[in-house]
C-alpha cells in the first residue's frame, strides 16, 4: 500500500507528502453480568495522507497542506482524485512556511517498548486475551458488589509513517480498554453504581486487580455515602482520574499552538508559584502502559521529554513542527503523558484538620484556557477532624491560578495511564456546593 500510494502521489506531481498507515487487528468482548452479550473482531487498515505545498507571494513563503483519509478499498483512480483535490485545496491554506520532518533532523529513534501482548497475539489466540482480562476482573474479590457490565477491547496496531523528506518509521503498539460497571445494593440509599473506563497499552494482571479492588471499595462506600450538605469552607484533596485532568492544564498551556495564537499565559522564565509545593512537571513521550504514548507524533517527529515547570517556574514548551518553528523553538515533538514530581505531604496530613477527599467525579473537567475546573462528586470522604465518612452529590469548582500558591503534593506517587505523579494533591480556595 505504501509503495502504491507513493507511486500515485508521484503521478499527480505531488512531491511533498506524509503517509500514515495503521493496520488494526482487534478483538472485543461485551459482557452483561458474567455472560458475553457479543464478541467482536476488527480487521482493518486506516490510511491518512497529508499533502503539502510550498508557494510564495512576493517575498513571503507559505506552506499549504491538507490531510485526507483513504481506504484500502479505494482504487487507484479514486485515490488519485482525492489526492489531487487535496493538492488543489492546499493552496487555500496559507500558513507561514515550516519544514517537514526529515531524516537528518530525525536522529532520534522511536523507542520500541516490549509488551506482554507481543508474545501471544497471533491468529485466533487474540480472542483469549478478552477471556484472560475478563477472568482477572471477575476473579477479583467483590463481596457485596455486582460486576454489572464489562467491556474488554484489545487491538494490535501496526503503524507505518513515511514522508517525502526521508522519514520512514514502522512500529507496533496496542490500544486496549476495559469499562467496568459495578453496583452495590442496600436498604438505605438503594442501588448505586460506579463505572471506570481504563485505557492501556500494556497489561498487568496485578495492576488490573488493584484497580478493580479500589473500584469495589469505592462502590461499597458510595452505597453508604451520606448526601454532601452544608460543606462550608473546606480544604479539598483530589485523587484518581482527576489528577491527570488537573495537570493537563499545564500540558495544554505550554503547547506551542496555544502560545502562538495568544491563548496561553505560559511564559518561559515566569515564576508561577511563590508558595506551596512548587511544581516540577514534564511532558513525556512514554509511560509504561499509557494509552497516550507517542513513538512518533503526527508530523513524523520522534518526541522527547520536555520540562514544562521546574520549582514552580515555566521552563520549556511543547514545540510541534509547525508552531514550534513559528516561535523559533527547538522542535520537541508532541508528548501527551504527564510526569509530576512528588511533594511534601504524607499520610499524617489526613489526621489533622477537616477536609473533603474527592475520589470519583461524574466528569471532572478542566478548561485549558481559563483554568476553571470542577465536577459533580460521585464519591468523596468528609473528615470532620475526628471521623471520616463517605459522601456523595454536590460539586466543586475552582481556578488553577487561585489554588497554585496553596497547592500541596503528596510524597507518595502513582503511575496510572498517562499520569505519573503525586498520589493526591491538596487544594485550598475551592467552592464546594452541597
Amino acid at each position, binding site marked *: 500500500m505504501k509503495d502504491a500510494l507513493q507511486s500515485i502521489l508521484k503521478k499527480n506531481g505531488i512531491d511533498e507528502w506524509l503517509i500514515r498507515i495503521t493496520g488494526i487487528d482487534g478483538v472485543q468482548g461485551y459482557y452483561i453480568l458474567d455472560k458475553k452479550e457479543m464478541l467482536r473482531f476488527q480487521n482493518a487498515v486506516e490510511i491518512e495522507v497529508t499533502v503539502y505545498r510550498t508557494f510564495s507571494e512576493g517575498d513571503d513563503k507559505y506552506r499549504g497542506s491538507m490531510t485526507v483519509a483513504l481506504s484500502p478499498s479505494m482504487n487507484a483512480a479514486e485515490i488519485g482524485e482525492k489526492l489531487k483535490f487535496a493538492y488543489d485545496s492546499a*493552496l487555500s491554506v496559507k500558513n507561514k512556511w515550516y519544514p517537514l520532518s526529515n531524516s537528518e533532523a530525525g536522529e532520534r529513534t522511536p523507542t520500541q517498548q516490549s509488551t506482554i501482548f507481543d508474545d501471544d497475539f497471533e491468529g485466533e489466540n487474540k480472542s483469549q486475551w478478552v477471556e484472560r482480562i475478563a477472568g482477572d476482573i471477575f476473579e477479583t474479590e467483590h463481596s457485596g458488589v455486582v460486576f454489572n457490565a464489562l467491556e474488554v477491547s484489545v487491538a494490535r496496531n501496526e503503524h507505518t509513517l513515511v514522508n517525502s523528506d526521508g522519514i520512514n518509521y514502522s512500529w507496533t503498539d496496542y490500544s486496549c480498554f476495559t469499562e467496568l460497571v459495578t453496583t452495590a445494593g442496600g436498604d438505605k440509599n438503594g442501588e448505586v453504581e460506579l463505572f471506570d473506563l481504563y485505557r492501556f497499552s500494556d497489561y498487568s494482571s496485578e495492576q488490573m486487580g488493584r484497580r478493580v479492588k479500589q473500584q469495589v471499595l469505592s462502590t461499597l462506600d458510595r452505597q453508604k455515602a451520606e448526601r454532601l450538605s452544608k460543606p462550608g469552607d473546606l480544604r479539598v484533596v483530589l485523587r484518581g482520574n482527576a489528577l491527570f485532568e488537573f495537570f493537563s492544564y499545564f500540558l495544554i498551556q505550554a503547547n506551542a499552538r496555544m502560545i502562538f495564537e495568544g491563548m496561553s499565559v505560559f511564559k518561559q522564565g515566569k515564576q508561577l508559584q511563590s508558595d506551596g509545593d512548587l511544581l516540577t512537571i514534564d511532558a513525556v513521550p512514554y509511560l509504561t502502559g499509557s494509552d497516550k504514548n507517542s513513538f512518533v507524533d503526527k508530523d513524523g517527529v520522534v518526541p522527547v521529554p520536555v520540562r514544562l515547570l521546574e520549582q514552580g517556574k515555566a521552563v520549556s514548551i511543547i514545540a510541534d513542527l509547525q508552531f514550534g518553528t513559528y516561535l523559533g523553538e527547538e522542535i520537541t515533538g508532541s508528548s501527551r503523558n504527564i510526569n509530576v514530581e512528588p511533594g511534601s505531604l504524607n499520610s499524617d496530613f489526613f489526621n489533622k484538620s477537616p477536609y473533603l477527599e474527592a475520589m470519583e467525579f461524574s466528569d471532572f473537567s478542566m478548561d485549558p484556557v481559563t483554568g476553571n475546573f470542577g465536577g459533580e462528586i460521585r464519591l468523596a470522604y468528609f473528615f470532620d477532624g475526628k471521623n471520616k465518612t463517605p459522601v456523595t452529590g454536590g460539586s466543586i469548582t475552582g481556578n488553577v491560578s487561585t489554588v497554585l500558591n496553596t497547592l500541596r503534593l503528596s510524597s507518595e506517587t502513582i503511575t496510572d495511564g498517562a499520569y505519573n505523579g503525586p498520589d493526591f494533591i491538596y487544594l485550598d480556595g475551592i467552592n464546594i456546593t452541597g
Partner: protein
Amino acid sequence: MVKVKNSEFLKRIKPEITKIVRLLENRFDYVSILGTDTFGYKYQLSGENSSIEESMWTERGFIARILDGGRVYEYSFNLIDTGVGGEIADKIVKAVEGSDPKGFRQYTLHQEEPLKLSFNDEVKVDPVSAGAEKIFSNMQTLFDRTLEAGEYVFNARVVYEWARVAKLFISTAKNLEQTYVWSQAYLIPMVKKENLIKVIYAAASGIGGLEILKSLENRIESTVADAELLLSAEPVIPGEYDVICSPDIAGLIAHEAFGHGVEMDMFVKNRALGKEYIGKKVGSSLVTMRDAAFPVRQCGSYRFDDEGVISGNTLIIENGTLKNGISDTLSAVSLGTVPTGNGRRESYLHKAYSRMTNTYFEGGNDSVDAMIASVDTGYLIDYTQSGMEDPKNWGLQAIAFIGREIKNGKLTGNIVSPVVMTGYVPDILNNISMISGDMELSGSGYCGKGWKEFVKVSSGGPYIKTKMRLG
C-alpha cells in the same frame, strides 16, 4: 436544492456484500452487513493559521453481524474488493468458529419483514462541490467581522465541518440505502483584558451545506458581546436558584438528564432508574419530550439506524409521565419490546448501542419576557460547556459558560461564569414551571456513552424555567 450524490463505492461493492450475506446465511441463523462510506472535511481559520483535514466522522467499512446458536458476533472489516467476497466470508466463519462458544447470553432476533428503501436527501448549497477557496472566503468574512465587533477581541477561530453520510444495509430480508449531508460551524471569539483570556462560541448545525456556515453571520455581535462580558464575570455564589434555561441548556438537560436515562440497553443492565418509572410521573405536567431521527432535520437525523431499523419518533415524556425508552435491537430482544431505531455506532469499528438522535422538550405557552419577570433572584443560563449523565442515580452534572443575573424580574446585565448545574433529575423536571413557545435544536457537538462511543446528535427545546443548584 440539489440531490445528494450516492456513494459510487457502495454501489460498486453492493453485489459483493450481497454475496457475502448469501454465503453466510447458509451457515448462520442470522446475517446482516452494514456498509458505510462517509466522508467530509473540517476547515479551520484563525489569525495566522488555517487548516483543512478529513472530518473525524469519515469512515469506509463494513460490519457483519452474525447470530450463531443464539450467540451474537460482529466482524468489522474494510479490506474488500470485487471478487474477494468468498474469502471474507471464510474469514468471518473462521473467526466465529475459532472462538470459545461458552459463556454467551442467548438471543433470538426479531423476524425481519422484507423491506427495500432508498433515501437520497437534498442539500441547498452543496459543500462537496463548493471547494476550499469558496469555503475559506466565507470563513474569512466571519473572521474579519468578528475582529471588528469588540474592543477586546484579539483573535478568533472559525470552524466549518461537513460530512456526506452514505450507508447500505443488507440482510436476508432487508435492502436499505441512505445518503445525506450534515454541516456544523463554530465562531469562537477570543478576548483578552490584561492577563485575562476568555473564549466562548456560537454554533450552527443541521442537515444541509454551506448555508449553515453563513447563518452564523447574524450572531457575530451578540457572541462577541457575551465573550467580553466574561471578562468581568464573577463566580456564582453556590446555592439553589430559580433559573431560566436557554434552548441550548434546555437541550443539554433533555439530553443528559433524561435522554441517557431512557437508553434501553441501560434498562437491560439495570443501570437506569427510568426502567422503574415507565408509566409514572417524573416531571411537571408541562413537560413533553421526544427523540426523533425523522422527520426532525438535524445532525442526529437518518432514515434507518446502524442495525437496519427504520428511524423512530419516540414520545419519551408526555405531560410529565414517562412513556417510552429508546432501544437498539439486542436490548429490545432482551426486554421483549419493539426496536425504536436507535441502534447507533461511532463507526464501522464499533459496537451499536441504544443512542439518542434529536432529543428535545416540546414548546409551551409562556413568553420569555414573562419568564424573566417571574424571577425574583436567579439566572438565565446560556452557552453549553459540557454535561455528564448518571442514569442510575438520576444525578445531573452540566456546565454552562454564562449565567445572566436576574433581580426583581429583570436582567441586570451582570453575569456569572462558569456555572456548574447539579441536581436530582426528577426535582429539576418537577420544578419546571414555565415553558416558552419557540423551540431550537443544536447539533454542533457529539455525544458519548460514558467517556467513549461518540455519535452525532442534536438536542434542544424552548426556554424553560426551573430550580437548580448552581456552583
